[in-house]
């Protein structure tokens, strides 16, 4: 077997990497995910900063928690927090070598994300029926509708991508007989999923409660 082939075989199993990453000695992938998340956080930060700027300078911005209602979104927030716990539990069980329990908790995490997206679709439908559109708002400033749909939609897309990512993880964990070979991958997926939870904490506070 040539050197290139053996290297490709080793890296494909996630066990050996060519050189140690300086910030995340476990893997380069983890550093890559952190850098991606930092970039993504700038995107969300920009959206929320623009929301704050528009709101501060608007004379007829509606009170979000009175218009949007927070009962459903509070439940959605709780659901995402629960899914973060199931995510860390999946990693914990994988570390202990129990693939079955790790897959079960990964599935619960994906299920929590899917229910979250379903609740968001329900909320959007309800608000659209009441007259809130991306270019119109019956309760005041039309930019309220624009910012609401863009920010929650951008986050919803992240959750949807996360659910697909988690399901792909379950498939990979099922294929690899050695739980240790999947640990790094699941840890990186966990970083993404917790970031989605973290962003929702900010979105819930700034767009629904304040």
């Amino acid at each position, binding site marked *: 077997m040539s050197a290139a082939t053996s290297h490709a075989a080793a890296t494909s199993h996630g066990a050996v990497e060519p050189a140690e990453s300086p910030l995340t000695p476990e893997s380069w992938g983890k550093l890559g995910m*952190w850098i991606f998340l930092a970039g993504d956080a700038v995107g969300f930060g920009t959206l929320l900063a623009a929301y704050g700027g528009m709101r501060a300078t608007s004379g007829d911005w509606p009170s979000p928690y009175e218009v949007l209602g*927070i009962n459903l979104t509070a439940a959605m927030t709780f659901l995402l*927090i629960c899914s973060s716990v199931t995510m*860390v539990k999946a990693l914990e069980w994988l570390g202990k070598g129990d693939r079955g329990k790790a897959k079960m908790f990964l599935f619960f995490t994906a299920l929590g994300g899917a229910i979250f997206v379903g609740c968001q679709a329900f909320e959007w439908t309800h608000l659209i029926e009441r007259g809130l559109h991306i270019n119109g708002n019956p309760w005041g400033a039309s930019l309220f509708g624009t910012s609401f749909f863009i920010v929650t939609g951008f986050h919803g897309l992240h959750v949807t991508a996360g659910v697909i990512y988690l399901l792909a993880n379950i498939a990979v964990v099922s294929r690899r007989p050695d739980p240790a070979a999947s640990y790094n991958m699941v*840890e990186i997926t966990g970083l993404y999923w917790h970031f989605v939870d973290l962003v929702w904490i900010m979105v819930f*506070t700034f767009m629904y409660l304040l």
Partner: protein
Amino acid sequence: MAGDHQHPNYMAIFYWLAILTVGEIGVVFLPHYIPMSKLTVGAFLCAFAIVKAAMVAMYFMHLKFETKTLGLIAVTPLAIATLLVFVILPDAFHVTHKTANLKPAPEGAAKH
């Protein structure tokens, strides 16, 4: 290195996050019962959100156990977003001020 550390008590973090979420919702409805300014409510909500986000990043994302440089990478977007608010606001208030000072159109003027 995150892989070498003892796992934190995840359930304790979960309980704290749940309690803080209930606290946030309580703060929103508190002005109905106790006189509180919007600024106070806003300050409380921001504090709750920052504590919750920090708990997720530190314990669930294991940032507490990572190198300081990685922590700096994670905190940079927060600093950029905060700076952006200060960049946007003067411009936005300038536009509002100009719009507010516009003289009303004279009666009978053509409307396009």
